[in-house]
Protein backbone atom coordinates (compact mmCIF):
# COMPACT_ATOMS: atom_id res chain seq x y z
CA UNK A 1 0.00 0.00 0.00
CA UNK A 2 1.24 3.45 -0.89
CA UNK A 3 0.83 6.63 1.14
CA UNK A 4 -1.72 7.87 -1.41
CA UNK A 5 -3.86 4.77 -0.82
CA UNK A 6 -4.07 5.53 2.87
CA UNK A 7 -4.88 9.16 2.07
CA UNK A 8 -7.73 8.07 -0.23
CA UNK A 9 -9.12 5.71 2.41
CA UNK A 10 -8.86 8.41 5.07
CA UNK A 11 -10.67 10.98 2.93
CA UNK A 12 -13.49 8.57 2.10
CA UNK A 13 -13.87 7.56 5.75
CA UNK A 14 -14.07 11.22 6.83
CA UNK A 15 -16.59 12.09 4.08
CA UNK A 16 -18.87 9.19 4.93
CA UNK A 17 -18.75 9.85 8.67
CA UNK A 18 -19.48 13.55 8.05
CA UNK A 19 -22.47 12.61 5.86
CA UNK A 20 -23.76 10.24 8.55
CA UNK A 21 -23.51 12.96 11.18
CA UNK A 22 -25.21 15.46 8.85
CA UNK A 23 -28.15 13.10 8.19
CA UNK A 24 -28.48 12.51 11.94
CA UNK A 25 -28.58 16.21 12.79
CA UNK A 26 -31.20 16.81 10.08
CA UNK A 27 -33.50 14.29 11.74
CA UNK A 28 -33.89 15.75 15.23
CA UNK A 29 -37.32 16.32 16.83
CA UNK A 30 -39.96 16.74 14.13
CA UNK A 31 -43.29 15.17 13.34
CA UNK A 32 -42.69 12.28 11.02
CA UNK A 33 -44.60 11.26 7.94
CA UNK A 34 -43.99 7.87 6.35
CA UNK A 35 -44.37 7.93 2.58
CA UNK A 36 -44.89 4.71 0.65
CA UNK A 37 -44.05 4.97 -3.04
CA UNK A 38 -44.56 2.23 -5.60
CA UNK A 39 -43.62 2.58 -9.28
CA UNK A 40 -42.95 6.29 -8.74
CA UNK A 41 -46.45 6.87 -7.36
CA UNK A 42 -47.31 7.71 -3.78
CA UNK A 43 -49.43 4.89 -2.38
CA UNK A 44 -49.96 6.37 1.05
CA UNK A 45 -48.71 9.09 3.37
CA UNK A 46 -49.01 8.20 7.04
CA UNK A 47 -48.56 10.52 10.01
CA UNK A 48 -46.71 8.06 12.24
CA UNK A 49 -47.52 9.89 15.48
CA UNK A 50 -51.25 9.46 14.80
CA UNK A 51 -51.23 5.70 14.24
CA UNK A 52 -53.28 4.05 16.98
CA UNK A 53 -53.85 0.46 15.93
CA UNK A 54 -51.05 -1.42 14.16
CA UNK A 55 -52.07 -2.34 10.61
CA UNK A 56 -50.59 -3.80 7.45
CA UNK A 57 -50.56 -2.51 3.89
CA UNK A 58 -49.94 -4.75 0.89
CA UNK A 59 -48.18 -3.38 -2.17
CA UNK A 60 -48.28 -5.61 -5.24
CA UNK A 61 -46.26 -5.30 -8.42
CA UNK A 62 -43.70 -7.75 -9.75
CA UNK A 63 -43.63 -9.01 -6.16
CA UNK A 64 -45.69 -8.42 -3.04
CA UNK A 65 -44.59 -6.37 -0.06
CA UNK A 66 -46.44 -6.48 3.22
CA UNK A 67 -45.78 -3.30 5.17
CA UNK A 68 -46.48 -2.99 8.88
CA UNK A 69 -47.34 0.35 10.45
CA UNK A 70 -47.24 0.98 14.18
CA UNK A 71 -47.15 4.12 16.30
CA UNK A 72 -43.96 6.05 15.42
CA UNK A 73 -42.54 3.32 13.21
CA UNK A 74 -42.98 1.40 9.96
CA UNK A 75 -41.28 -1.52 8.24
CA UNK A 76 -41.39 -4.05 5.43
CA UNK A 77 -42.69 -7.04 7.34
CA UNK A 78 -42.76 -9.62 4.58
CA UNK A 79 -41.87 -9.73 0.92
CA UNK A 80 -41.58 -12.42 -1.71
CA UNK A 81 -38.71 -10.66 -3.50
CA UNK A 82 -35.47 -12.61 -3.91
CA UNK A 83 -33.01 -10.73 -1.72
CA UNK A 84 -35.23 -9.60 1.18
CA UNK A 85 -33.10 -6.50 1.67
CA UNK A 86 -36.22 -4.44 2.39
CA UNK A 87 -37.29 -6.78 5.20
CA UNK A 88 -33.81 -6.91 6.70
CA UNK A 89 -33.66 -3.13 6.84
CA UNK A 90 -36.06 -3.37 9.81
CA UNK A 91 -37.98 -0.55 11.45
CA UNK A 92 -37.86 3.02 10.15
CA UNK A 93 -38.43 5.62 12.84
CA UNK A 94 -36.19 8.66 12.16
CA UNK A 95 -36.24 11.39 9.55
CA UNK A 96 -34.27 10.30 6.50
CA UNK A 97 -34.64 6.58 7.21
CA UNK A 98 -35.41 4.73 4.03
CA UNK A 99 -36.12 1.13 3.06
CA UNK A 100 -36.17 0.10 -0.55
CA UNK A 101 -37.37 -3.00 -2.37
CA UNK A 102 -35.66 -2.54 -5.73
CA UNK A 103 -37.23 -5.65 -7.35
CA UNK A 104 -40.74 -4.43 -6.60
CA UNK A 105 -39.83 -0.72 -6.96
CA UNK A 106 -41.27 0.09 -3.55
CA UNK A 107 -39.79 2.73 -1.28
CA UNK A 108 -40.73 3.74 2.23
CA UNK A 109 -39.13 6.87 3.52
CA UNK A 110 -39.62 9.14 6.46
CA UNK A 111 -40.21 12.81 5.85
CA UNK A 112 -40.96 15.76 8.10
CA UNK A 113 -44.34 17.41 8.26
Amino acid at each position, binding site marked *: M*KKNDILLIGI*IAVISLALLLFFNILGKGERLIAVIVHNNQVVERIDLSKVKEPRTITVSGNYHNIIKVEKDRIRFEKSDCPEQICVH*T*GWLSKFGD*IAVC*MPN*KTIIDIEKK
Partner: protein
Amino acid sequence: MSTKRIALIAMLVAQATILHYLEGLLPNPIPIPGVKLGLANIITLLALILYDFKTALNIVVLRTILGSLLNGSLFGVGFFLSFTGAMVATCMMVILLRVFPVLSVIGVSVAGAIAHSVGQLLMAALIINQPGIFYYLPFMLLFSIPSGIITGLLLKALLKYIEKS
Protein backbone atom coordinates in the same frame (compact mmCIF):
# COMPACT_ATOMS: atom_id res chain seq x y z
CA MET B 1 -8.86 -10.03 -33.18
CA SER B 2 -6.30 -12.76 -32.75
CA THR B 3 -7.29 -16.25 -31.66
CA LYS B 4 -5.16 -15.92 -28.54
CA ARG B 5 -6.92 -12.71 -27.55
CA ILE B 6 -10.36 -14.29 -28.06
CA ALA B 7 -9.37 -17.27 -25.93
CA LEU B 8 -8.01 -15.03 -23.17
CA ILE B 9 -11.07 -12.82 -23.11
CA ALA B 10 -13.32 -15.89 -23.02
CA MET B 11 -11.39 -17.29 -20.06
CA LEU B 12 -11.55 -14.04 -18.10
CA VAL B 13 -15.25 -13.66 -18.92
CA ALA B 14 -15.89 -17.17 -17.60
CA GLN B 15 -14.02 -16.42 -14.37
CA ALA B 16 -15.73 -13.06 -13.87
CA THR B 17 -19.16 -14.61 -14.54
CA ILE B 18 -18.61 -17.31 -11.95
CA LEU B 19 -17.42 -14.77 -9.37
CA HIS B 20 -20.44 -12.56 -10.14
CA TYR B 21 -22.78 -15.54 -9.72
CA LEU B 22 -21.13 -16.91 -6.56
CA GLU B 23 -21.28 -13.52 -4.94
CA GLY B 24 -25.04 -13.41 -5.49
CA LEU B 25 -25.32 -16.61 -3.46
CA LEU B 26 -23.58 -15.13 -0.42
CA PRO B 27 -25.92 -13.69 2.19
CA ASN B 28 -25.89 -9.89 2.31
CA PRO B 29 -24.09 -8.77 5.50
CA ILE B 30 -25.76 -5.34 5.63
CA PRO B 31 -29.37 -4.61 4.63
CA ILE B 32 -28.47 -2.08 1.96
CA PRO B 33 -29.19 -2.79 -1.69
CA GLY B 34 -26.04 -3.29 -3.71
CA VAL B 35 -23.61 -3.77 -0.84
CA LYS B 36 -21.34 -6.64 -1.80
CA LEU B 37 -17.70 -7.58 -2.02
CA GLY B 38 -17.31 -6.98 -5.74
CA LEU B 39 -15.28 -10.12 -6.43
CA ALA B 40 -15.86 -9.85 -10.18
CA ASN B 41 -14.06 -6.53 -10.04
CA ILE B 42 -10.84 -8.50 -9.51
CA ILE B 43 -11.07 -9.73 -13.09
CA THR B 44 -11.92 -6.27 -14.46
CA LEU B 45 -8.87 -4.77 -12.79
CA LEU B 46 -6.72 -7.71 -13.88
CA ALA B 47 -7.78 -7.14 -17.49
CA LEU B 48 -6.97 -3.44 -17.17
CA ILE B 49 -3.49 -4.20 -15.82
CA LEU B 50 -2.62 -7.03 -18.22
CA TYR B 51 -4.42 -5.78 -21.34
CA ASP B 52 -6.32 -2.59 -22.10
CA PHE B 53 -9.51 -0.62 -21.54
CA LYS B 54 -11.30 -2.18 -24.50
CA THR B 55 -10.65 -5.72 -23.30
CA ALA B 56 -11.82 -4.83 -19.80
CA LEU B 57 -15.02 -3.27 -21.17
CA ASN B 58 -15.70 -6.38 -23.27
CA ILE B 59 -15.34 -8.50 -20.16
CA VAL B 60 -17.54 -6.24 -18.02
CA VAL B 61 -20.38 -6.17 -20.56
CA LEU B 62 -20.27 -9.93 -21.14
CA ARG B 63 -19.99 -10.91 -17.50
CA THR B 64 -22.83 -8.66 -16.29
CA ILE B 65 -25.08 -10.10 -19.01
CA LEU B 66 -24.03 -13.72 -18.40
CA GLY B 67 -23.96 -13.32 -14.61
CA SER B 68 -27.49 -11.94 -14.48
CA LEU B 69 -28.64 -14.57 -16.96
CA LEU B 70 -27.43 -17.19 -14.47
CA ASN B 71 -29.07 -15.63 -11.41
CA GLY B 72 -32.26 -14.74 -13.25
CA SER B 73 -32.09 -10.96 -13.08
CA LEU B 74 -31.32 -10.27 -16.76
CA PHE B 75 -32.63 -6.82 -17.79
CA GLY B 76 -34.25 -6.51 -14.36
CA VAL B 77 -33.48 -3.80 -11.85
CA GLY B 78 -30.49 -5.66 -10.39
CA PHE B 79 -28.95 -6.06 -13.82
CA PHE B 80 -29.01 -2.33 -14.55
CA LEU B 81 -27.55 -1.57 -11.15
CA SER B 82 -24.59 -3.90 -11.51
CA PHE B 83 -24.09 -2.95 -15.16
CA THR B 84 -23.89 0.78 -14.41
CA GLY B 85 -21.77 0.21 -11.32
CA ALA B 86 -19.30 -2.01 -13.18
CA MET B 87 -19.03 0.44 -16.10
CA VAL B 88 -18.39 3.44 -13.85
CA ALA B 89 -15.87 1.43 -11.83
CA THR B 90 -14.00 0.35 -14.98
CA CYS B 91 -13.76 3.95 -16.23
CA MET B 92 -12.58 5.15 -12.82
CA MET B 93 -9.93 2.42 -12.56
CA VAL B 94 -8.56 2.99 -16.06
CA ILE B 95 -8.17 6.69 -15.30
CA LEU B 96 -6.31 5.89 -12.08
CA LEU B 97 -4.09 3.32 -13.81
CA ARG B 98 -3.20 5.22 -16.98
CA VAL B 99 -3.87 8.95 -16.56
CA PHE B 100 -3.12 9.61 -12.87
CA PRO B 101 -1.06 6.64 -11.69
CA VAL B 102 -0.74 7.79 -8.08
CA LEU B 103 -2.25 4.76 -6.33
CA SER B 104 -1.16 1.15 -5.85
CA VAL B 105 -3.31 -1.79 -6.95
CA ILE B 106 -5.12 -1.72 -3.62
CA GLY B 107 -5.88 1.99 -3.87
CA VAL B 108 -7.19 1.56 -7.41
CA SER B 109 -9.36 -1.32 -6.21
CA VAL B 110 -10.80 0.82 -3.38
CA ALA B 111 -11.47 3.67 -5.84
CA GLY B 112 -13.17 1.16 -8.14
CA ALA B 113 -15.38 -0.05 -5.29
CA ILE B 114 -16.33 3.54 -4.47
CA ALA B 115 -17.08 4.33 -8.12
CA HIS B 116 -19.19 1.16 -8.31
CA SER B 117 -21.27 2.22 -5.29
CA VAL B 118 -21.78 5.76 -6.53
CA GLY B 119 -22.66 4.68 -10.08
CA GLN B 120 -25.08 2.08 -8.80
CA LEU B 121 -26.74 4.55 -6.45
CA LEU B 122 -27.16 7.13 -9.24
CA MET B 123 -28.81 4.48 -11.41
CA ALA B 124 -31.04 3.37 -8.52
CA ALA B 125 -32.09 6.99 -7.86
CA LEU B 126 -32.92 7.29 -11.57
CA ILE B 127 -34.95 4.05 -11.68
CA ILE B 128 -37.04 4.71 -8.60
CA ASN B 129 -37.04 8.48 -9.08
CA GLN B 130 -36.24 9.11 -5.44
CA PRO B 131 -33.17 11.12 -4.39
CA GLY B 132 -33.78 10.03 -0.77
CA ILE B 133 -31.93 6.83 -1.62
CA PHE B 134 -28.69 8.80 -1.24
CA TYR B 135 -29.24 8.27 2.49
CA TYR B 136 -27.41 4.99 1.81
CA LEU B 137 -24.36 6.76 0.38
CA PRO B 138 -22.28 7.03 3.59
CA PHE B 139 -22.86 3.36 4.42
CA MET B 140 -21.91 2.29 0.91
CA LEU B 141 -18.81 4.50 0.93
CA LEU B 142 -17.70 3.08 4.27
CA PHE B 143 -18.24 -0.48 3.08
CA SER B 144 -16.30 0.22 -0.13
CA ILE B 145 -13.13 0.58 1.91
CA PRO B 146 -12.88 -2.97 3.32
CA SER B 147 -14.34 -4.56 0.18
CA GLY B 148 -11.90 -2.64 -2.04
CA ILE B 149 -8.96 -3.65 0.15
CA ILE B 150 -10.01 -7.32 0.19
CA THR B 151 -10.42 -7.53 -3.59
CA GLY B 152 -7.18 -5.55 -4.04
CA LEU B 153 -5.26 -8.02 -1.86
CA LEU B 154 -6.76 -10.98 -3.73
CA LEU B 155 -5.71 -9.40 -7.03
CA LYS B 156 -2.18 -8.80 -5.72
CA ALA B 157 -1.89 -12.48 -4.79
CA LEU B 158 -3.23 -13.42 -8.22
CA LEU B 159 -0.77 -11.14 -10.02
CA LYS B 160 2.15 -12.83 -8.24
CA TYR B 161 1.13 -16.21 -9.69
CA ILE B 162 0.66 -14.75 -13.14
CA GLU B 163 4.09 -13.09 -13.12
CA LYS B 164 5.70 -16.41 -12.18
CA SER B 165 4.13 -18.32 -15.03
